[in-house]
Protein backbone atom coordinates (compact mmCIF):
# COMPACT_ATOMS: atom_id res chain seq x y z
CA UNK A 1 0.00 0.00 0.00
CA UNK A 2 1.41 3.38 -0.97
CA UNK A 3 1.13 6.36 1.37
CA UNK A 4 -0.93 8.20 -1.26
CA UNK A 5 -3.47 5.42 -1.60
CA UNK A 6 -3.76 5.03 2.13
CA UNK A 7 -4.17 8.75 2.78
CA UNK A 8 -6.85 9.04 0.11
CA UNK A 9 -8.79 6.12 1.65
CA UNK A 10 -8.36 7.72 5.02
CA UNK A 11 -9.66 11.06 3.76
CA UNK A 12 -12.79 9.33 2.47
CA UNK A 13 -13.68 8.10 5.95
CA UNK A 14 -12.25 10.76 8.20
CA UNK A 15 -12.08 13.92 6.08
CA UNK A 16 -9.94 16.57 7.69
CA UNK A 17 -10.08 14.92 11.12
CA UNK A 18 -7.10 12.64 10.51
CA UNK A 19 -3.94 14.48 9.54
CA UNK A 20 -1.52 12.20 7.70
CA UNK A 21 2.29 12.57 7.65
CA UNK A 22 4.80 10.23 6.06
CA UNK A 23 7.73 10.10 8.49
CA UNK A 24 9.90 8.04 6.16
CA UNK A 25 11.35 4.60 6.80
CA UNK A 26 7.90 2.95 6.45
CA UNK A 27 6.50 4.96 9.37
CA UNK A 28 3.37 7.05 9.08
CA UNK A 29 1.92 9.44 11.57
CA UNK A 30 -1.78 10.16 12.04
CA UNK A 31 -3.09 12.92 14.28
CA UNK A 32 -6.74 12.74 15.28
CA UNK A 33 -8.96 14.46 17.83
CA UNK A 34 -9.85 12.29 20.80
CA UNK A 35 -13.41 11.41 19.79
CA UNK A 36 -12.26 10.13 16.38
CA UNK A 37 -9.34 8.10 17.73
CA UNK A 38 -11.15 4.81 18.40
CA UNK A 39 -12.95 4.81 15.03
CA UNK A 40 -9.58 5.42 13.39
CA UNK A 41 -7.91 2.58 15.31
CA UNK A 42 -10.81 0.34 14.38
CA UNK A 43 -10.45 1.38 10.73
CA UNK A 44 -6.73 0.58 10.87
CA UNK A 45 -7.30 -2.81 12.46
CA UNK A 46 -9.76 -3.73 9.73
CA UNK A 47 -7.23 -2.62 7.10
CA UNK A 48 -4.56 -5.18 8.08
CA UNK A 49 -2.95 -3.13 10.86
CA UNK A 50 -3.63 -5.94 13.31
CA UNK A 51 -0.61 -5.60 15.60
CA UNK A 52 -0.84 -3.08 18.42
CA UNK A 53 2.80 -2.84 19.48
CA UNK A 54 2.12 -0.65 22.49
CA UNK A 55 0.65 2.60 23.70
CA UNK A 56 2.82 5.38 25.02
CA UNK A 57 1.97 8.71 26.59
CA UNK A 58 3.91 11.96 26.49
CA UNK A 59 3.28 14.83 28.88
CA UNK A 60 3.31 18.33 27.35
CA UNK A 61 2.82 20.77 30.26
CA UNK A 62 3.59 23.66 27.91
CA UNK A 63 0.36 22.93 25.99
CA UNK A 64 -1.44 21.66 29.12
CA UNK A 65 -2.00 18.40 27.21
CA UNK A 66 -1.05 14.75 27.30
CA UNK A 67 -0.39 12.99 24.03
CA UNK A 68 -1.26 9.32 23.60
CA UNK A 69 0.61 7.47 20.88
CA UNK A 70 -0.78 4.16 19.60
CA UNK A 71 1.78 2.12 17.69
CA UNK A 72 0.20 -0.21 15.16
CA UNK A 73 1.90 -2.34 12.55
CA UNK A 74 0.69 -4.14 9.45
CA UNK A 75 2.32 -7.51 8.80
CA UNK A 76 0.90 -7.37 5.30
CA UNK A 77 2.09 -3.92 4.23
CA UNK A 78 5.06 -3.74 6.60
CA UNK A 79 4.18 -0.23 7.71
CA UNK A 80 4.27 1.18 11.21
CA UNK A 81 1.63 3.78 12.04
CA UNK A 82 1.80 6.13 15.01
CA UNK A 83 -1.69 7.31 15.90
CA UNK A 84 -1.48 10.42 18.04
CA UNK A 85 -4.25 12.00 19.98
CA UNK A 86 -4.26 14.55 22.76
CA UNK A 87 -6.23 14.99 25.93
CA UNK A 88 -6.30 17.86 28.38
CA UNK A 89 -3.80 17.52 31.23
CA UNK A 90 -6.15 18.22 34.11
CA UNK A 91 -8.56 15.33 34.52
CA UNK A 92 -7.06 13.58 31.51
CA UNK A 93 -9.21 10.83 30.04
CA UNK A 94 -9.54 8.69 26.97
CA UNK A 95 -11.75 5.88 25.67
CA UNK A 96 -10.39 2.38 26.20
CA UNK A 97 -9.10 0.37 23.24
CA UNK A 98 -9.25 -2.97 25.01
CA UNK A 99 -12.21 -4.15 22.95
CA UNK A 100 -10.08 -3.79 19.83
CA UNK A 101 -6.93 -5.31 21.31
CA UNK A 102 -7.11 -7.21 24.60
CA UNK A 103 -3.59 -6.36 25.67
CA UNK A 104 -4.41 -2.64 25.46
CA UNK A 105 -5.98 -3.12 28.89
CA UNK A 106 -2.54 -3.64 30.45
CA UNK A 107 -0.97 -0.70 28.61
CA UNK A 108 -3.83 1.56 29.68
CA UNK A 109 -3.55 0.34 33.24
CA UNK A 110 0.11 1.31 33.20
CA UNK A 111 -0.54 4.73 31.64
CA UNK A 112 -3.28 5.39 34.16
CA UNK A 113 -0.86 4.69 36.95
CA UNK A 114 2.22 6.38 35.55
CA UNK A 115 0.72 9.29 33.62
CA UNK A 116 -2.63 9.78 35.28
CA UNK A 117 -4.88 9.27 32.26
CA UNK A 118 -8.26 7.74 33.03
CA UNK A 119 -9.47 5.22 30.47
CA UNK A 120 -13.21 5.17 30.16
CA UNK A 121 -14.47 1.56 29.97
CA UNK A 122 -11.26 -0.15 31.03
CA UNK A 123 -12.25 -3.01 33.36
CA UNK A 124 -9.23 -2.80 35.66
CA UNK A 125 -7.30 0.38 36.42
CA UNK A 126 -5.98 -0.80 39.78
CA UNK A 127 -2.34 -0.01 40.60
CA UNK A 128 0.02 -2.47 38.94
CA UNK A 129 3.50 -1.25 39.79
CA UNK A 130 3.39 1.34 42.55
CA UNK A 131 2.83 0.51 46.16
CA UNK A 132 0.86 2.89 48.39
CA UNK A 133 1.37 5.79 45.99
CA UNK A 134 -0.16 9.09 47.03
CA UNK A 135 1.91 11.53 45.02
CA UNK A 136 1.21 12.79 41.48
CA UNK A 137 1.69 10.27 38.62
CA UNK A 138 5.46 9.78 38.36
CA UNK A 139 5.91 10.10 34.61
CA UNK A 140 4.41 13.58 34.51
CA UNK A 141 6.96 16.27 33.87
CA UNK A 142 6.27 18.13 37.11
CA UNK A 143 7.10 15.08 39.25
CA UNK A 144 10.64 15.48 40.59
CA UNK A 145 12.10 12.08 41.55
CA UNK A 146 14.93 13.61 43.55
CA UNK A 147 12.68 15.77 45.69
CA UNK A 148 10.37 12.80 46.19
CA UNK A 149 13.26 10.55 47.29
CA UNK A 150 14.47 13.13 49.78
CA UNK A 151 10.97 13.35 51.17
CA UNK A 152 10.09 9.67 51.17
CA UNK A 153 13.37 7.92 51.84
CA UNK A 154 15.23 10.07 54.38
CA UNK A 155 14.60 10.05 58.10
CA UNK A 156 14.08 13.83 58.05
CA UNK A 157 11.54 13.54 55.22
CA UNK A 158 9.66 10.82 57.08
CA UNK A 159 9.68 12.88 60.27
CA UNK A 160 11.77 10.24 62.03
CA UNK A 161 15.08 12.16 62.35
CA UNK A 162 16.32 12.42 65.93
CA UNK A 163 15.99 15.96 67.18
CA UNK A 164 19.08 18.10 67.01
CA UNK A 165 20.65 18.33 70.44
CA UNK A 166 23.35 20.45 72.00
CA UNK A 167 26.84 18.96 71.81
CA UNK A 168 26.90 18.26 75.53
CA UNK A 169 23.72 16.19 75.37
CA UNK A 170 25.05 13.59 72.96
CA UNK A 171 25.02 10.30 74.87
CA UNK A 172 28.40 8.65 75.02
Amino acid at each position, binding site marked *: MTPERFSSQLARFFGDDARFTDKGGAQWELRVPRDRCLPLLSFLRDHSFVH*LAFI*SAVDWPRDQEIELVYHVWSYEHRVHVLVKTRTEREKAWMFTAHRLWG*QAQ*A*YEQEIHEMMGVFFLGNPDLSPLF*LHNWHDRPP*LRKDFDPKAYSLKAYTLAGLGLAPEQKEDGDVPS
Partner: protein
Amino acid sequence: MYLPDGYTTLEKLREAGEYADYDLFFGPNHPGMHGNFGYVLTMIGTEVVRVRPNAGQLHRGFEKAMENKAWAANVSLIPRVCVPDPDPNEVAYCQAVEKLLGCEVPIRGRWMRSITLELSRLGSLYMGMGGLAGALGHYSTMYLMMIERDLILDRFEALTGARVYHIYNVPGGVRNDAPEGWFDSVSRLLDHLEAQMPEYDRLLYENHVVWDRLQGMAPITAEEAMASGVTGPALRATGVKADIRVDAPYAAYPEIQVDIPTSGGGDALARAVQVRLDFAESVRILRRLLARIPDGPVHADLGNLAKLKVPAGDAYSKVESSKGEFGYYVVSDGGEKPYRVSVRGPSLPAGLYLCHKHLPGMKIDDVAAWMASFAICPPDIDR
Protein backbone atom coordinates in the same frame (compact mmCIF):
# COMPACT_ATOMS: atom_id res chain seq x y z
CA MET B 1 -11.41 -15.92 52.77
CA TYR B 2 -15.09 -16.46 53.56
CA LEU B 3 -15.71 -19.58 55.70
CA PRO B 4 -19.21 -20.76 56.59
CA ASP B 5 -19.93 -21.18 60.30
CA GLY B 6 -18.77 -24.44 61.81
CA TYR B 7 -16.44 -25.43 59.03
CA THR B 8 -12.78 -24.82 59.60
CA THR B 9 -10.90 -27.62 57.88
CA LEU B 10 -10.62 -28.52 54.21
CA GLU B 11 -12.03 -31.95 54.99
CA LYS B 12 -15.21 -30.54 56.47
CA LEU B 13 -15.63 -28.12 53.59
CA ARG B 14 -15.25 -30.95 51.14
CA GLU B 15 -17.80 -33.04 53.03
CA ALA B 16 -20.23 -30.17 52.95
CA GLY B 17 -19.82 -29.86 49.17
CA GLU B 18 -17.94 -26.57 49.47
CA TYR B 19 -14.65 -26.07 47.77
CA ALA B 20 -11.73 -24.38 49.39
CA ASP B 21 -9.63 -21.97 47.42
CA TYR B 22 -6.43 -20.30 48.47
CA ASP B 23 -4.06 -17.69 47.16
CA LEU B 24 -0.64 -18.91 46.14
CA PHE B 25 2.08 -16.33 45.63
CA PHE B 26 3.89 -17.74 42.60
CA GLY B 27 6.92 -15.48 42.82
CA PRO B 28 8.83 -13.35 43.52
CA ASN B 29 10.34 -16.02 45.77
CA HIS B 30 9.50 -19.16 43.87
CA PRO B 31 11.97 -21.54 42.21
CA GLY B 32 9.89 -21.55 39.03
CA MET B 33 9.88 -17.77 38.66
CA HIS B 34 12.32 -16.02 36.34
CA GLY B 35 12.89 -12.82 38.23
CA ASN B 36 11.32 -10.43 40.64
CA PHE B 37 7.84 -10.85 39.29
CA GLY B 38 4.92 -12.81 40.57
CA TYR B 39 1.47 -14.14 39.90
CA VAL B 40 -1.01 -14.35 42.71
CA LEU B 41 -2.76 -17.59 41.79
CA THR B 42 -6.12 -18.44 43.27
CA MET B 43 -6.00 -22.20 43.53
CA ILE B 44 -8.35 -25.09 44.28
CA GLY B 45 -6.17 -28.04 45.12
CA THR B 46 -3.43 -27.98 42.50
CA GLU B 47 -5.48 -26.21 39.83
CA VAL B 48 -5.32 -22.52 39.03
CA VAL B 49 -8.69 -20.75 39.08
CA ARG B 50 -7.82 -17.09 38.80
CA VAL B 51 -4.63 -15.16 38.26
CA ARG B 52 -3.54 -11.67 39.22
CA PRO B 53 -0.17 -10.46 37.91
CA ASN B 54 1.82 -8.99 40.77
CA ALA B 55 4.25 -6.68 38.98
CA GLY B 56 6.27 -3.77 40.26
CA GLN B 57 8.88 -5.49 42.38
CA LEU B 58 11.53 -4.85 39.76
CA HIS B 59 10.36 -1.40 38.73
CA ARG B 60 13.30 0.96 38.57
CA GLY B 61 11.68 3.86 36.76
CA PHE B 62 13.95 3.65 33.71
CA GLU B 63 11.68 5.76 31.53
CA LYS B 64 11.79 8.58 34.07
CA ALA B 65 15.52 8.15 34.77
CA MET B 66 16.29 8.41 31.07
CA GLU B 67 14.73 11.88 30.97
CA ASN B 68 17.38 13.06 33.43
CA LYS B 69 20.48 11.73 31.69
CA ALA B 70 22.40 12.87 28.61
CA TRP B 71 21.56 11.16 25.30
CA ALA B 72 24.68 9.01 25.18
CA ALA B 73 24.76 8.34 28.94
CA ASN B 74 21.43 6.54 28.66
CA VAL B 75 23.12 3.68 26.84
CA SER B 76 24.54 2.58 30.18
CA LEU B 77 21.02 2.37 31.63
CA ILE B 78 19.20 0.75 28.75
CA PRO B 79 20.68 -2.78 28.64
CA ARG B 80 19.26 -3.36 32.10
CA VAL B 81 15.76 -3.42 30.61
CA CYS B 82 16.46 -7.00 29.48
CA VAL B 83 19.09 -8.94 31.41
CA PRO B 84 19.66 -12.04 29.25
CA ASP B 85 19.44 -10.22 25.90
CA PRO B 86 20.67 -6.63 26.46
CA ASP B 87 22.01 -5.62 23.04
CA PRO B 88 18.66 -5.21 21.21
CA ASN B 89 17.81 -2.44 23.68
CA GLU B 90 21.00 -0.54 22.97
CA VAL B 91 20.57 -0.88 19.22
CA ALA B 92 16.88 0.10 19.23
CA TYR B 93 17.56 3.21 21.31
CA CYS B 94 20.62 4.24 19.28
CA GLN B 95 18.74 3.75 16.02
CA ALA B 96 15.90 5.96 17.22
CA VAL B 97 18.42 8.67 18.18
CA GLU B 98 20.20 8.29 14.85
CA LYS B 99 16.87 8.66 13.05
CA LEU B 100 16.32 11.99 14.81
CA LEU B 101 19.90 13.09 14.11
CA GLY B 102 19.65 11.95 10.49
CA CYS B 103 23.02 10.26 10.81
CA GLU B 104 24.23 7.28 8.85
CA VAL B 105 26.11 4.47 10.60
CA PRO B 106 29.21 3.27 8.70
CA ILE B 107 28.86 -0.18 7.17
CA ARG B 108 31.43 -1.84 9.46
CA GLY B 109 29.61 -0.39 12.47
CA ARG B 110 26.34 -1.88 11.23
CA TRP B 111 28.09 -5.21 10.73
CA MET B 112 29.46 -5.15 14.29
CA ARG B 113 25.95 -4.40 15.54
CA SER B 114 24.50 -7.38 13.75
CA ILE B 115 27.27 -9.70 14.97
CA THR B 116 26.82 -8.64 18.60
CA LEU B 117 23.01 -8.83 18.25
CA GLU B 118 23.22 -12.41 16.99
CA LEU B 119 25.71 -13.40 19.69
CA SER B 120 23.43 -11.87 22.30
CA ARG B 121 20.53 -13.78 20.78
CA LEU B 122 22.44 -17.07 21.03
CA GLY B 123 23.25 -16.37 24.67
CA SER B 124 19.64 -15.53 25.41
CA LEU B 125 18.29 -18.57 23.55
CA TYR B 126 20.59 -20.79 25.62
CA MET B 127 19.13 -19.17 28.70
CA GLY B 128 15.60 -19.66 27.31
CA MET B 129 16.12 -23.33 26.47
CA GLY B 130 17.88 -23.89 29.79
CA GLY B 131 15.09 -22.07 31.61
CA LEU B 132 12.50 -24.28 29.94
CA ALA B 133 14.46 -27.38 30.89
CA GLY B 134 14.75 -26.11 34.45
CA ALA B 135 11.01 -25.41 34.60
CA LEU B 136 10.40 -29.04 33.63
CA GLY B 137 12.81 -30.31 36.28
CA HIS B 138 15.80 -30.99 34.03
CA TYR B 139 18.32 -28.99 35.98
CA SER B 140 21.41 -30.64 34.47
CA THR B 141 20.38 -29.48 30.98
CA MET B 142 19.97 -25.97 32.32
CA TYR B 143 23.43 -25.89 33.90
CA LEU B 144 25.04 -27.36 30.79
CA MET B 145 23.45 -24.64 28.66
CA MET B 146 24.66 -21.98 31.06
CA ILE B 147 28.21 -23.24 30.40
CA GLU B 148 27.74 -22.62 26.67
CA ARG B 149 26.26 -19.20 27.38
CA ASP B 150 29.32 -18.38 29.42
CA LEU B 151 31.54 -19.04 26.41
CA ILE B 152 29.53 -16.43 24.49
CA LEU B 153 29.92 -13.99 27.37
CA ASP B 154 33.70 -14.58 27.15
CA ARG B 155 33.64 -13.27 23.58
CA PHE B 156 31.68 -10.23 24.75
CA GLU B 157 34.24 -9.64 27.46
CA ALA B 158 37.04 -9.71 24.89
CA LEU B 159 35.15 -7.25 22.67
CA THR B 160 33.67 -4.80 25.16
CA GLY B 161 35.23 -5.51 28.56
CA ALA B 162 31.83 -6.41 30.00
CA ARG B 163 30.11 -9.75 30.23
CA VAL B 164 26.42 -9.11 30.86
CA TYR B 165 25.70 -5.45 30.05
CA HIS B 166 27.98 -4.60 27.15
CA ILE B 167 27.16 -0.91 26.58
CA TYR B 168 28.79 -1.41 23.20
CA ASN B 169 26.54 0.72 21.02
CA VAL B 170 26.63 4.49 20.95
CA PRO B 171 24.59 6.90 18.84
CA GLY B 172 26.40 6.78 15.49
CA GLY B 173 27.73 3.24 15.61
CA VAL B 174 29.59 1.04 18.07
CA ARG B 175 32.21 2.02 20.63
CA ASN B 176 35.28 0.23 19.33
CA ASP B 177 36.49 -2.13 16.65
CA ALA B 178 37.06 -5.80 17.36
CA PRO B 179 40.47 -6.73 18.79
CA GLU B 180 42.97 -8.80 16.81
CA GLY B 181 41.74 -12.35 16.25
CA TRP B 182 38.27 -11.76 17.69
CA PHE B 183 36.36 -12.80 14.58
CA ASP B 184 38.32 -16.04 14.44
CA SER B 185 37.50 -16.75 18.06
CA VAL B 186 33.79 -16.22 17.31
CA SER B 187 34.09 -18.56 14.36
CA ARG B 188 35.70 -21.23 16.53
CA LEU B 189 32.99 -20.71 19.14
CA LEU B 190 30.29 -21.35 16.51
CA ASP B 191 32.05 -24.60 15.52
CA HIS B 192 32.01 -25.64 19.15
CA LEU B 193 28.35 -24.70 19.68
CA GLU B 194 27.27 -26.58 16.57
CA ALA B 195 29.26 -29.62 17.60
CA GLN B 196 27.63 -29.58 21.05
CA MET B 197 24.09 -29.04 19.80
CA PRO B 198 23.18 -32.70 19.02
CA GLU B 199 23.83 -33.54 22.66
CA TYR B 200 21.45 -30.82 23.83
CA ASP B 201 18.90 -31.98 21.28
CA ARG B 202 19.02 -35.43 22.84
CA LEU B 203 18.72 -33.96 26.31
CA LEU B 204 15.86 -31.57 25.62
CA TYR B 205 14.13 -32.12 22.29
CA GLU B 206 14.32 -35.89 21.99
CA ASN B 207 13.13 -36.26 25.54
CA HIS B 208 9.77 -37.92 26.06
CA VAL B 209 9.12 -36.06 29.30
CA VAL B 210 9.53 -32.69 27.58
CA TRP B 211 7.24 -33.67 24.70
CA ASP B 212 4.52 -35.06 26.94
CA ARG B 213 4.58 -32.06 29.20
CA LEU B 214 4.59 -29.40 26.48
CA GLN B 215 2.40 -30.91 23.78
CA GLY B 216 -0.96 -29.17 23.63
CA MET B 217 -0.16 -26.77 26.46
CA ALA B 218 -1.52 -23.23 26.09
CA PRO B 219 -2.14 -23.21 22.33
CA ILE B 220 -2.72 -19.98 20.43
CA THR B 221 -3.77 -19.48 16.84
CA ALA B 222 -1.99 -17.19 14.42
CA GLU B 223 -4.86 -14.65 14.48
CA GLU B 224 -4.96 -14.66 18.25
CA ALA B 225 -1.21 -14.22 18.50
CA MET B 226 -1.19 -11.28 16.09
CA ALA B 227 -4.17 -9.62 17.77
CA SER B 228 -2.64 -10.06 21.23
CA GLY B 229 0.64 -8.36 20.35
CA VAL B 230 2.66 -11.57 20.62
CA THR B 231 5.88 -11.30 18.60
CA GLY B 232 9.08 -13.20 18.00
CA PRO B 233 9.39 -16.97 18.40
CA ALA B 234 5.95 -17.30 20.00
CA LEU B 235 4.36 -15.72 16.90
CA ARG B 236 6.48 -17.71 14.46
CA ALA B 237 5.51 -20.88 16.33
CA THR B 238 1.95 -20.33 15.10
CA GLY B 239 3.19 -20.45 11.51
CA VAL B 240 3.35 -16.71 10.80
CA LYS B 241 6.46 -15.76 8.86
CA ALA B 242 7.22 -12.54 10.69
CA ASP B 243 10.63 -11.29 11.69
CA ILE B 244 11.68 -7.65 12.04
CA ARG B 245 15.08 -8.53 10.59
CA VAL B 246 13.22 -9.20 7.32
CA ASP B 247 10.10 -7.00 7.60
CA ALA B 248 11.85 -3.79 8.64
CA PRO B 249 15.55 -4.60 8.32
CA TYR B 250 18.16 -2.64 10.25
CA ALA B 251 21.92 -2.84 10.94
CA ALA B 252 23.52 -5.26 8.44
CA TYR B 253 20.39 -7.33 7.81
CA PRO B 254 19.37 -5.57 4.57
CA GLU B 255 22.56 -6.97 3.02
CA ILE B 256 22.42 -10.44 4.53
CA GLN B 257 20.14 -13.34 3.73
CA VAL B 258 17.78 -13.99 6.65
CA ASP B 259 15.37 -16.92 6.47
CA ILE B 260 12.35 -17.28 8.73
CA PRO B 261 11.92 -20.88 9.85
CA THR B 262 8.54 -21.60 11.47
CA SER B 263 7.54 -24.61 13.49
CA GLY B 264 3.74 -24.21 13.39
CA GLY B 265 1.23 -25.65 15.81
CA GLY B 266 1.12 -22.81 18.31
CA ASP B 267 1.38 -24.82 21.52
CA ALA B 268 4.19 -24.74 24.06
CA LEU B 269 6.03 -27.53 22.25
CA ALA B 270 5.93 -25.57 18.99
CA ARG B 271 7.32 -22.55 20.83
CA ALA B 272 10.14 -24.64 22.28
CA VAL B 273 10.97 -26.08 18.86
CA GLN B 274 10.81 -22.58 17.37
CA VAL B 275 13.54 -21.45 19.75
CA ARG B 276 15.73 -24.28 18.48
CA LEU B 277 15.03 -23.29 14.85
CA ASP B 278 15.83 -19.66 15.65
CA PHE B 279 19.08 -20.82 17.20
CA ALA B 280 20.15 -22.67 14.07
CA GLU B 281 19.16 -19.73 11.88
CA SER B 282 21.10 -17.34 14.09
CA VAL B 283 24.25 -19.45 13.75
CA ARG B 284 23.81 -19.46 9.97
CA ILE B 285 23.37 -15.66 9.93
CA LEU B 286 26.50 -15.24 12.05
CA ARG B 287 28.49 -17.37 9.59
CA ARG B 288 27.23 -15.24 6.69
CA LEU B 289 28.15 -12.06 8.57
CA LEU B 290 31.62 -13.34 9.48
CA ALA B 291 32.27 -14.43 5.89
CA ARG B 292 32.40 -10.87 4.57
CA ILE B 293 33.24 -8.19 7.08
CA PRO B 294 33.60 -4.82 5.40
CA ASP B 295 36.44 -2.42 6.21
CA GLY B 296 36.17 1.13 7.46
CA PRO B 297 35.31 3.05 10.61
CA VAL B 298 32.86 1.60 13.15
CA HIS B 299 31.15 4.82 14.18
CA ALA B 300 30.19 8.14 12.65
CA ASP B 301 31.81 11.27 14.06
CA LEU B 302 29.18 13.07 16.13
CA GLY B 303 31.62 15.25 18.11
CA ASN B 304 31.55 15.12 21.88
CA LEU B 305 28.87 12.56 22.67
CA ALA B 306 28.51 13.86 26.24
CA LYS B 307 27.21 17.16 24.82
CA LEU B 308 25.15 15.60 22.06
CA LYS B 309 22.08 17.62 21.09
CA VAL B 310 19.29 15.93 19.18
CA PRO B 311 16.87 17.90 16.96
CA ALA B 312 13.27 18.11 18.17
CA GLY B 313 10.97 15.36 16.96
CA ASP B 314 10.02 11.79 17.67
CA ALA B 315 11.10 8.43 16.30
CA TYR B 316 10.28 4.78 16.84
CA SER B 317 12.80 2.07 16.25
CA LYS B 318 12.44 -1.65 16.79
CA VAL B 319 14.69 -4.66 16.88
CA GLU B 320 13.99 -8.39 16.75
CA SER B 321 15.30 -9.71 20.04
CA SER B 322 15.39 -13.36 21.04
CA LYS B 323 11.95 -12.91 22.64
CA GLY B 324 10.29 -10.66 20.10
CA GLU B 325 9.90 -6.99 19.28
CA PHE B 326 11.89 -4.57 21.38
CA GLY B 327 10.95 -1.01 20.50
CA TYR B 328 11.99 2.42 21.67
CA TYR B 329 9.85 5.47 21.13
CA VAL B 330 12.06 8.50 21.66
CA VAL B 331 10.85 12.11 21.83
CA SER B 332 13.26 15.04 21.76
CA ASP B 333 12.63 18.70 22.41
CA GLY B 334 16.02 19.69 20.98
CA GLY B 335 17.88 19.51 24.27
CA GLU B 336 20.82 17.56 25.67
CA LYS B 337 18.53 15.00 27.31
CA PRO B 338 15.63 12.96 25.93
CA TYR B 339 12.22 14.50 26.53
CA ARG B 340 10.57 11.10 26.78
CA VAL B 341 11.66 7.53 26.16
CA SER B 342 9.02 4.84 26.02
CA VAL B 343 9.91 1.16 25.91
CA ARG B 344 8.01 -1.62 24.19
CA GLY B 345 9.02 -4.98 25.66
CA PRO B 346 8.15 -8.37 24.18
CA SER B 347 6.99 -9.95 27.46
CA LEU B 348 4.03 -7.79 28.36
CA PRO B 349 1.37 -9.25 26.01
CA ALA B 350 1.85 -12.77 27.37
CA GLY B 351 2.90 -11.81 30.87
CA LEU B 352 0.03 -9.47 31.68
CA TYR B 353 -2.68 -10.36 29.17
CA LEU B 354 -2.48 -13.96 27.92
CA CYS B 355 -1.91 -15.20 31.47
CA HIS B 356 -5.61 -14.54 32.14
CA LYS B 357 -6.53 -16.83 29.24
CA HIS B 358 -4.00 -19.61 29.68
CA LEU B 359 -3.36 -20.06 33.39
CA PRO B 360 -6.91 -20.70 34.70
CA GLY B 361 -7.47 -24.45 34.51
CA MET B 362 -3.76 -25.20 34.44
CA LYS B 363 -1.99 -27.33 37.05
CA ILE B 364 0.47 -25.54 39.27
CA ASP B 365 3.43 -27.57 37.93
CA ASP B 366 2.84 -26.25 34.40
CA VAL B 367 2.88 -22.55 35.26
CA ALA B 368 6.68 -22.25 35.23
CA ALA B 369 6.87 -24.13 31.92
CA TRP B 370 4.20 -21.84 30.47
CA MET B 371 6.25 -18.78 31.46
CA ALA B 372 9.40 -20.27 29.96
CA SER B 373 7.61 -21.22 26.74
CA PHE B 374 6.56 -17.59 26.22
CA ALA B 375 10.05 -16.41 27.30
CA ILE B 376 8.51 -14.01 29.79
CA CYS B 377 11.25 -11.77 31.09
CA PRO B 378 9.92 -9.58 33.92
CA PRO B 379 12.41 -6.68 33.61
CA ASP B 380 10.79 -5.46 30.42
CA ILE B 381 7.31 -5.55 31.98
CA ASP B 382 8.56 -3.63 34.99
CA ARG B 383 11.18 -1.46 33.30
